[in-house]
């Protein structure tokens, strides 16, 4: 079946690309897997350089795109699910490009819950795991259960794969304890430390003994420099670390990296500490794969962002900066980045509750919208649960004009028309981002996104 199914899936992909359908990143793979359930394994065998898998709650798409940029600049051909379609069908669609003898390396971001299943079939040579935060509990279940499944996966791959792990996230760091073939990355700049634990922080307790960790520095959520006062378990020393992070609002940040290959200073054109983490993760992995240090630096400096993650698009004479928000930890980082901007801000927020967003919108009460109190001029709330977003802002003490308009297109036009500053900050959830992207493509303001 595979021999027939694969060319058929390729035809479907070519057709959907011609029609400009956004489903072109999943439908061909879905068809292929239905006709030939073992297709992932067979296609992955055509990748001469093997595959690496990237997973995390936050930053998968951006980190993978940075890594792809490093590899491509080093002249390494990559097969990559770059639009972020990250379940088995999205990986299968990307794998249609696998070509034996072409020296390709597979680079796949994989949804947290799908990771064990996809890894089972693809047999990666390297696994990059960055963070686990609470996210879509209705879909993923509890964080601890997900961490258990990842631990089983790492155990199974031990000996056949290498691991690049975040030392600053205790859940991730634990995966590598006592193993060979692990590279840790992290941040070591206490100027970026938060004054205290954010409300949404998870995993504040040692998985070894159950005691609460003490933190010398908290950088983001439950990520930081931690130690268990009871059993002594502590953050492993990272081989690749950002020893200096200087944030410069929406324009980007400066990073100094310490690596086994030497020091590297990078001007990263993406804002926020969360993107600094993505860059350190990508750098650690690229170096592990033999990309020269200087090439990593060039790739990161020339990086232009991934789909809907900090894009700026001109609409109606204003610059609209699109920042995906989808869970408390990610939203907190976006909000923290916005507080670095000058003046009172014009916001457009689109809260959807479709399956890919998580049907449960409770999470907005875990995100610290309070940090924007006194910093917002006008907030237009859209999406399927627009009114609940507006209520959240009201109770966060946002003393701004709050507008509710569930229709995405109308609300965006209103927000653009009534904004006063040069910039409008757009914060959509995942499916709202897809709608926004389609809308901008229809207006010829953004290219359609396909693999």
């Amino acid at each position, binding site marked *: 079946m595979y021999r027939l199914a694969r060319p058929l899936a390729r035809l479907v992909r070519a057709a959907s690309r011609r029609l400009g359908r956004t489903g072109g990143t999943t439908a061909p793979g879905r068809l292929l897997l239905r006709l030939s359930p073992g297709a992932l394994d067979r296609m992955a065998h055509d990748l001469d350089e093997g595959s690496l898998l990237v997973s995390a709650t936050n930053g998968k798409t951006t980190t993978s795109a940075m890594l792809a940029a490093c590899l491509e600049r080093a002249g390494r051909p990559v097969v990559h699910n770059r639009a972020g379609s990250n379940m088995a069908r999205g990986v299968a669609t990307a794998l249609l490009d696998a070509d034996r003898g072409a020296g390709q390396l597979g680079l796949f971001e994989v949804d947290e819950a799908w990771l064990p299943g996809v890894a089972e079939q693809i047999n990666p040579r390297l696994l990059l795991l960055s963070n686990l935060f*609470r996210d879509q*509990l*209705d879909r993923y279940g*509890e*964080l*601890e*259960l997900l961490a258990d499944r990842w631990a089983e996966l790492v155990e199974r791959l031990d000996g056949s794969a290498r691991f690049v792990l975040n030392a600053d996230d205790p859940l991730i760091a634990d995966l590598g304890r006592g193993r060979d073939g692990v590279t840790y990355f992290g941040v070591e700049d206490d100027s970026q430390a938060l004054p205290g634990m954010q*409300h*949404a922080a998870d995993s*504040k307790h040692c998985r070894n003994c*159950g005691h609460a960790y003490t933190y010398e520095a908290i950088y983001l959520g439950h990520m930081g420099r931690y130690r268990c006062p009871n059993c002594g378990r502590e953050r492993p020393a990272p081989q690749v670390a950002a020893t200096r992070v200087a944030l410069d609002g929406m324009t980007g940040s400066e990073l100094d990296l310490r690596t086994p290959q030497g020091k590297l200073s990078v001007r990263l054109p993406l804002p926020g500490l969360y993107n600094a983490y993505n860059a350190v993760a990508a750098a650690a992995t690229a170096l592990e794969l033999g990309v020269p240090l200087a090439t990593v630096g060039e790739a990161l400096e020339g990086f232009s962002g991934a789909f809907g993650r900090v894009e700026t698009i001109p609409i109606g004479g204003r610059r609209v900066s699109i920042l995906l928000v989808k869970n*408390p930890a990610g939203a907190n980082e976006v909000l923290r980045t916005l507080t670095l901007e000058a003046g009172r801000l014009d916001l457009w927020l689109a809260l959807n*509750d479709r399956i890919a967003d998580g*049907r*449960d*919108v*409770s*999470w*907005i*009460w*875990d995100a610290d919208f309070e940090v924007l109190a006194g910093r917002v001029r006008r907030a237009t709330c859209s999406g*399927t*649960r*627009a*009114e*609940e977003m*507006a*209520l*959240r802002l*009201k*109770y966060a003490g946002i003393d701004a004009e*709050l507008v*509710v308009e569930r229709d995405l297109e109308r609300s965006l036009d209103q927000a653009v028309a009534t904004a006063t500053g040069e910039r409008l900050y757009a914060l959509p959830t995942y499916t709202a981002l897809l709608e926004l992207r389609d809308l901008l493509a229809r207006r010829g303001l953004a290219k359609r996104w396909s693999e």
Partner: protein
Amino acid sequence: MPTLRVCSLYPELMNIYADRGNIAVLRARCEWRGLGFEHAAASLGAPLDPDAHDLFYMGGGQDRDQIAVAHDMAATKREALHAAAGRGAVVLAVCGGYQLLGHSYELGGDELPGVGLVDLRTVREPGPRLIGNCAIEADLGTGSRVIAGFENHGGRTHLGPEERPLGRVLAGHGNNGSDGFEGVHRDNVIGTYLHGPLLPKNIWLADHLIELALGVELEPLADQQFEDGAHASARRAAGVQARLN
């Protein structure tokens, strides 16, 4: 003016679905009315003074945290909670907190102790977790009203013969997915599977709880456009459009 004294039980562990939204709403609605507001916490090992608070709140947690909390609550807080409920303090327990209000809670083959404040047991039964938007019709003595929210629970809760549910399920699963009822309501003790930020979606319930806890009657607040909108939004998500109040 009176002060609403709220105590969160195990807030650093039992907060998985953004339970703090409930506290934020209680705080704001007291402050906007010129009422005082105090918020305390009682966690593992801490004693609980039944007379020091008007409203006790407990949210949901991860299984692992819930095990520690169940044992601690039975050992250190059972008597105080009975005393507080006995003198009419409000107890609002949501999700995992609700399960621990009863006699026992079955988790991973073990039976965890509850505080026995209400007559119910939570057991495991074959079938998937009960997940989704949910709306119920409840009468807390002020006429029939809708409470809308989101439920996500593996346990099935069964009430004893004398115990009253909080409401009748209009949409969703409720206590056990089979008997058509949701939550528990005895005097000023309320337990529900509608988890996390339940009060932001049902502002009428927030105001009602403040009234019960303080024994006062509140004037409605002006400009409730977003509060009404959020309630309508949560109901719409559950497929229960406004037809009751």
